[in-house]
């Protein structure tokens, strides 16, 4: 792609701060990417521990380990942290590391704003976590923050609103940075339609974030004034409308689903061509499919609200618009499979996670189509079928793509190869464990088990026990991932500049580990 990579090590003429100040004051995209990824890793174990507590409680019917209110706090915080504290920061970490490297840019467009966008996140996480120790405990009304529960709770609800504001601000700052970098700082010759697909998916994701995060901020601001300043936006007793909150929330939260999955599409679209040793099949159609999914995501929100009651015409509109998303998504799955078709494939850990992504995300997509059918959704609303559906999308979708991306780029970031044997152990235990947790939940949901309950009827016992066993296999196998990452940072076989034989792109033209400063002189792309 490029004639030469202009990279060199640290300058002699200015000193970098060391120790904690290096990380607090850094404006380097690689440092900030690392910070995002470590933050996401820590929060993965925090929210994962909550998931294991939830599953331990659900191992048997009856109340075993905790008060039902604490159970509700765990489900709420697990959702909020996994979305805002794990998946989104992890993708931001990838964007910070990879977008400038892939574009041949020396850094992000606004490095100081980049620093702020990261460092407000731990503050938000502190507010969220601290609420566990406040009177009344953490928020327990579900991650969707629906009134009237969210208007009635204690001080932790105000802290959560503050945390959501901070996380939203962080996302908007990060997104403005990414859009500006991609539109203004590409290397000469690197046209938009030559950009790696990861950059395209993040460009579209950043637009989605800029368009939806302010809507969430507006919704939680109204919640805040309802709680503290006597307004009645969502308080039916004062003439407000709680269903309006659901409309505003889901206008944010459905595009948010795509914010959580489009960068995953980007990562998988980098990994599969590398290990199939073929260019990505249908690059242009991938770009248009990504844009189509993003546009459609704004007109499907009320499929989350079929049971609130709406005219048949409304139900039909939201049902068909939701089903329409399967078309561009199908284009993507087809293109990934076509890329692998007759390729010289090898199955290193990143490729294993990418293939599992294609298979298992598709299962999550199909159960989404089932839920899109209004009369079916009315039966399955708030059952474990929904829990199964979105975990297939977010665990075997978003999280598996994050694992694929980490294994794919970790040698570039650290300069060391990871342990392939341990990587394969991590993959197989994760893939098997994940299916043992979440597949039985389809049956539980179809049989009528509601979500967000600490106790259940006897007939649901067996599938719940299977799910809990799977959860512990999946959860503890993530310790292998932790060991692999720490070992790779510490040492290991030296990684070459082009880590993978089939890898294409500017990031592979710089040495491994990528020097602190790269592309100070822009490369020319032919």
């Amino acid at each position, binding site marked *: 792609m490029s004639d030469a990579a202009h990279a060199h090590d640290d300058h002699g003429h200015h000193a970098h701060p060391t120790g904690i100040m290096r990380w607090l004051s850094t404006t380097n995209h690689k440092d900030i990417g690392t910070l995002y990824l470590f933050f996401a890793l820590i929060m993965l174990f925090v929210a994962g521990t909550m998931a294991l507590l939830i599953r331990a409680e659900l191992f048997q019917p009856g109340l075993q380990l905790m008060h039902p209110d604490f159970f509700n706090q765990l489900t709420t915080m697990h959702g909020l942290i996994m979305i805002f504290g794990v998946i989104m920061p992890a993708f931001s970490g990838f964007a910070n590391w990879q977008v400038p490297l892939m574009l041949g840019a020396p850094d992000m*467009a606004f490095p100081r704003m980049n620093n702020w966008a990261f460092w407000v996140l731990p503050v938000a996480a502190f507010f969220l976590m601290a609420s566990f120790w406040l009177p009344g405990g953490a928020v327990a009304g579900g991650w969707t923050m629906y009134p009237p529960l969210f208007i009635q709770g204690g001080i932790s609800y105000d802290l959560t609103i503050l945390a959501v504001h901070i996380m939203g601000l962080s996302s908007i700052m990060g*997104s403005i940075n990414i859009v500006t970098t991609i*539109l*203004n700082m590409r290397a000469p010759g690197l046209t938009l339609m030559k950009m790696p697909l990861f950059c395209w998916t993040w460009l579209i994701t950043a637009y989605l974030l800029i368009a939806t995060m*302010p809507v969430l901020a507006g919704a939680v601001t109204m919640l805040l004034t309802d709680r503290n300043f006597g307004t009645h*936006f969502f308080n039916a007793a004062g003439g407000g409308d709680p269903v309006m909150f659901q409309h*505003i929330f889901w206008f944010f939260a459905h595009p948010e689903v795509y914010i959580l999955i489009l960068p995953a599409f980007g990562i998988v679209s980098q990994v599969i061509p590398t290990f199939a040793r073929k260019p990505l099949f249908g690059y242009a159609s991938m770009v248009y499919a990504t844009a189509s999914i993003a546009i459609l995501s704004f007109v499907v929100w009320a499929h989350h609200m079929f049971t609130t009651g709406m005219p048949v015409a409304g139900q039909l509109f939201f049902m068909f618009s939701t089903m329409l998303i399967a078309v561009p998504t199908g284009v993507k799955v087809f293109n990934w499979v076509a890329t692998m078709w007759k390729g010289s494939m090898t199955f290193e850990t990143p490729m294993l996670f990418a293939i599992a992504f294609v298979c298992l995300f598709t299962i999550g997509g199909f159960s989404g189509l089932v839920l899109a059918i209004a009369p079916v959704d009315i039966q399955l609303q708030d059952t474990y079928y929904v829990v199964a559906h979105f975990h297939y999308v977010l665990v075997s979708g978003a999280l598996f793509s994050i694992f694929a991306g980490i294994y794919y780029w970790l040698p570039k970031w650290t300069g060391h190869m990871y342990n392939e044997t341990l990587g394969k152990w991590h993959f197989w235990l994760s893939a098997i464990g994940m299916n043992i947790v979440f597949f039985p939940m389809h049956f539980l949901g179809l049989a009528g088990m509601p979500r967000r309950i600490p106790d259940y009827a006897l007939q649901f016992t067996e599938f719940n026990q299977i799910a809990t066993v799977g959860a512990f296999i999946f959860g503890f196998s993530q310790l292998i991932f932790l060991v692999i990452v720490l070992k790779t940072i510490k040492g290991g076989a030296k990684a070459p500049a082009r880590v993978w034989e089939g890898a294409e792109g500017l990031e592979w033209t710089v040495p491994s580990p990528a020097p602190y400063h790269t592309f100070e002189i822009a490369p020319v792309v032919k």
Partner: protein
Amino acid sequence: MAGNRNSKYRTAAILAVIALGLFLYTLYAGLK
């Protein structure tokens, strides 16, 4: 567009105005 690094402030300002506008519009929609 590539290489034109002065236009980054214009791009960022437009995006920030869009974000602020959407926030205010959401509040306005809630008031109606």
